[in-house]
């Protein structure tokens, strides 16, 4: 496996994350949002984004898995491996994800969380592959739009490798 061009440098990512953090801080003010990270790919983005958020906020995690391999194209409900620790009724929930692809997993997750009656439920994604979308997912905060390339780095893996790269690269 070879890494091709750098799609977004570490500096570009950090600058965009700072902008997103500032925007989220303005929008949420003192409403104490609950940031929900999705394991495992989203944690690097979450970790940097939360430090760019200047208003009081809380943190929680979920882990989901699809029933079959190829979660990004599966249209079946994901299994919840780790549920939230916090009760989200009446809370402002911001779901943090590394990449939105077909949208199936995310759509199921949003439907599930909506049944718990949060005050608001929004999505912040670092990357969006709009060309791959099969089901509508409202993205309220987006880092970068990308073409339909296989990417890795900044938490996103290629066969479990390259999550530690501080930049995002195309995989050839």
């Amino acid at each position, binding site marked *: 496996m070879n890494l091709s061009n750098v799609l977004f440098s570490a500096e570009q990512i950090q600058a965009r994350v700072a902008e997103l953090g500032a925007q989220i801080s303005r929008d949420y003010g*003192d409403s*104490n949002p609950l*940031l929900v*990270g999705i*394991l*495992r790919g989203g*944690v*690097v983005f*979450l*970790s*940097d984004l*939360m*430090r760019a*958020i200047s*208003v*009081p*906020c*809380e*943190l*929680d*995690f979920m*882990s989901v898995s699809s029933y079959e391999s190829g979660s990004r194209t599966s249209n079946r409900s994901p299994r919840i*491996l*780790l549920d939230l*620790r*916090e009760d989200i009724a009446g809370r402002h929930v911001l779901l943090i994800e590394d990449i939105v692809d077909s949208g199936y997993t995310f759509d199921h997750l949003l439907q599930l969380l909506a049944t718990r009656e949060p005050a608001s439920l929004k999505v912040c994604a670092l990357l969006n592959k709009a060309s791959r979308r099969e089901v509508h997912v409202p993205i309220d905060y987006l880092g970068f739009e990308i073409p339909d390339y296989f990417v890795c780095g900044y*938490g996103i893996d290629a066969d*479990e*490798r390259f*999550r*530690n*790269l*501080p930049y995002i690269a195309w995989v050839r």
Partner: protein
Amino acid sequence: MSKLSETIARHGHEPLLDHVLITAAQLQTRIAEMGAQISKDYHGKDLLMISVLKGGVVFLTDLMRQVTIPHHIDFMAVTSYGVGVRSTRGHPRITLDLNTDVKGRHLLLVEDIIDSGHTIDHVLRLLAARNPATLKVAALLDKPSRREVYVPIAYLGFEIPNEFVFGYGLDLDEYCRNLPFIGTVKKEYQ
């Protein structure tokens, strides 16, 4: 709602910050050193870095970016039966287990803080029972004065006094995990 969380919700962390114990720059410098050391020590080995939610995640995501050799990451979540995760003596329940088999692999448990040591001691025993090739601990903070059970720390960021600390993944009533530095809490809020 406690006095602590009420204050933070209304005014942020500033009113209860006594002083910054470790700055963001100091944290990043030390983590870069730790990452370089780990990269050297595990060169050519199948390294799996394991983080325990929630507090250890910020440290893990910074540390992994300083580890230049190929490695994998995985997560565990544990919940203690009692209240007060940092001080409990009860065996923790695993609420999220590892996604991968660890037999024969080189495991590095990445922790934000070692306090009494009870929780990490249980996690270490559990992982050891799965026959990894090696099992070591990387801890950002060590409070040796609070230790009740021995924990071998192979890689340590900072040894700190017995103060009430927060930030950089460590919470105050679930708040303040997002601060990029480690601060101490004023006496009147403890």
